[in-house]
């Protein structure tokens, strides 16, 4: 059984937002709502500025607070390690939204809570998630952590990576490379 994860190479992100558009188109995300976002953060004083472009989405945590908080079992973990929502069981109580440290969820106009599913309808047929497929800089890498030969496993071995809010102890499965050097000269 695969154990899916995503690696985001922040050095390669150009902030084109194509991932957001691809996600919205693929998953029919309603206007004004998002399953993924690209946060832009600047630091420093002009003209000595640095900018961080950080793609954010559901972290499909191993210890997912949203799954713990859900009173009906609608938010659950699949065998592939991803966190999914069973829309037919969701009462829209929004406990999962309050519980998510990454603010990755929203209320769909149909009444259920929605979020990134790692495009599980695509991964089931061997395709990569839409955001990964469309990323022009190759910033998003998706794959199986249980396969030592997968690109994500190799990159995780070769780079220093971080996860968001490690202190919360959620064990996210979205990893980030953010050492800002020239792409191709990884160290």
């Amino acid at each position: 059984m695969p154990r899916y994860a995503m690696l985001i190479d922040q050095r390669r992100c150009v902030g084109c937002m194509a991932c957001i558009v691809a996600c919205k188109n693929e998953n029919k995300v309603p206007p004004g709502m998002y399953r993924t976002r690209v946060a832009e953060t600047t630091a420093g004083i002009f003209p000595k500025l640095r900018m961080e472009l950080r793609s954010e989405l559901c972290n499909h945590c191993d210890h997912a607070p949203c799954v713990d908080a859900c009173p009906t079992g609608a938010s659950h973990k699949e065998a592939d390690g991803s966190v999914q929502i069973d829309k037919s069981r969701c009462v829209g109580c929004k406990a999962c939204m309050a519980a998510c440290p990454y603010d990755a969820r929203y209320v769909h106009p149909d009444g259920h809570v929605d979020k990134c599913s790692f495009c599980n309808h695509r991964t089931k047929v061997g395709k990569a998630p839409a955001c990964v497929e469309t990323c022009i800089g190759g910033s998003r890498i998706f794959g199986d952590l249980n396969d030592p030969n997968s690109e994500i496993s190799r990159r995780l071995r070769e780079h220093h990576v971080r996860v968001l809010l490690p202190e919360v102890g959620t064990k996210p499965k979205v990893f980030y490379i953010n050492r800002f050097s020239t792409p191709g000269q990884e160290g």
Partner: protein
Amino acid sequence: METTILGLNSATFPHLHIWDWRVALYLFLGGLTAGAMVMSSVANLRKDKSSLKEKACCVRLPLIAPLLLAVGMFFLFLDLENKKNMFWFYMTLQPLSPMSWGSWALLAVYPVMILFGLSVLPEEFYPRLPFAFLKRLAATLQPQMRRLAAANFVMGILLGVYTGVLLSSYVARPLWNSALLPVLFLISALSSGAALAIIMAKQDKAKLFFTKVDIWLLFAEIFVLVGLFYGHYSSTEAHREAIMPFFDISSQHFPYAISIILLSIVLPGAIVLKFLEVRVDHEGPIVGRAKTQMITSAALVLVGALIIRFAIVYAGQLSSLSRYTSIY
């Protein structure tokens, strides 16, 4: 056609909220019910030497408790986005979900509340009961009143704590994520229950008793409230930032600053009024100005409890860990 790509959902937009006034009102009414349960139990457990008839104190308080909770539950129901799926609450028990425990606990709280309410009823109330079986049940339960009062007391405490645990279990919301929050909500619930008892009790002795009880509870409430703020201030940056809206008079956070200002008037004000009441020798019946003063102080306590619920529910959603994800 959508022309903007912000990537921001309501949870990441500060002025859009997950839960609104409906949940705040539910937490207030849930707390008030818990307080009413505990105080009506205390009132009826206190006297032991008198006859059953004399023991029946605060008869209407346990009867109104299920109604208050029902109104609160109605507001919670209004907040559900997918109401037709509500039956799923009772198709599963999620052991790590406070909301799942809460929905199942209601099945225990309601029967105890109702049975206790019936057991307290004096016989002269029986003709007002709508069904014959209720009259028979009330008569059967009367000898068990003390046991039911004890069970009602325990259920009231659990309900009061639950309203706080519901919020404090979310690590993602630093303002809520404190072990002191359930304590604050419990004390506030007990205090508002005592205030309701003061308003509803017919016997002057009961009114004075609950006034004395409420003084201690109000002191404890202020102490825990200050402790909650200090605990956050001395904790991580996310916790410290979480309380800042209460001390910021800019237009963005003005309602939170106002809530703290109001609480620092309402709660001490209620204490002062209550002290004035208990210092006077009430030899005759409590009427006129003394009664107005008593009701005013009780109303202030209820307003304070309402402000606490609204301020905590809304400000908690401004506090989010997700803003600390940047490497800078």
